[in-house]
């Protein structure tokens, strides 16, 4: 596997998981954690030989902050919609967005971001035409959703993963 030069993220995160679960930084926990992390990472790497090569971590942090802010905002919006269902049901619908992002890891992150934000859910992605289908709870103005996905999420993801 071509892993020279890239940090071994799987080992690092498994080791961090072990240390956090045990709540200790003692040397024997480091040793045990490494003993578990190295073979597991070695065995599971064969399952997915293609590795993600994320870059530009400052941009990734900014993206996380944007996503957090959007999650809070859309939580309030969806809460308002649910409490307002006595008067009317929301107008739901599917929305199709042509993408430029091609990297599979970037697409996976985009799908998780979209689904984790209440009010939008990932429905389909066509690998041939690279069109993403979303389901939107409150389809008032399609242009805003399109703009949010394209500029706020897709552009940074393309810079991070491609």
């Amino acid at each position, binding site marked *: 596997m071509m892993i020279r030069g890239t940090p071994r993220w799987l080992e690092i995160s498994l080791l961090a998981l072990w240390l956090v679960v045990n709540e200790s930084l003692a040397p024997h926990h480091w040793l045990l954690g490494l003993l578990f992390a190295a073979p597991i990472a070695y065995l599971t790497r064969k399952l997915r030989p293609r590795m993600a090569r994320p870059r530009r971590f400052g941009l990734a942090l900014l993206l996380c902050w944007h996503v957090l802010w959007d999650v809070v905002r859309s939580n309030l919006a969806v809460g308002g919609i649910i409490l307002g269902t006595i008067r009317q*049901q929301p107008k739901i619908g*599917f929305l199709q967005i042509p993408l430029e992002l091609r990297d599979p890891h970037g697409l996976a992150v985009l*799908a998780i971001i979209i689904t*984790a934000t209440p009010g939008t*859910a990932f429905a389909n992605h066509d690998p041939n035409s690279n069109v993403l289908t979303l389901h939107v709870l409150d389809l008032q103005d399609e242009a805003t959703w399109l703009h949010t996905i394209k500029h706020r999420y897709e552009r940074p993801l393309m810079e991070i993963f491609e």
Partner: protein
Amino acid sequence: MNVAAMPPWLALPAAILLIAGGLLALIGSLGLLRLNSFYARIHAPTMGNTLGAGCVLIASMLTSSAVAERPVIHELLITVFLLLTSPVTTMLLMRAALFRSDHEYQGESEGEGEGEGEAP
């Protein structure tokens, strides 16, 4: 309950986060009852799964750090795990619903009519 020995500057944010998390999870679950079609309902529990659970887990970190008198961060594990996994379940359910509505299963919503979106 055993929260008597907490300093007020920790107890106040923890209490506010708990109330916010409880309300978010409650409204999200209420959405399951109030919305009239499956495609609308799939959006409701996301509220409780992301921000609601996040608020509660931060509050839990604050209180358990105060009780143990050292920083306790292992609730972060549940937060990260929920953030990564609950979208996966939602996506699979969405795909399952689309697959089933493509096939023999039409007219599932109680409300009927415009509630049903068009499958792509």
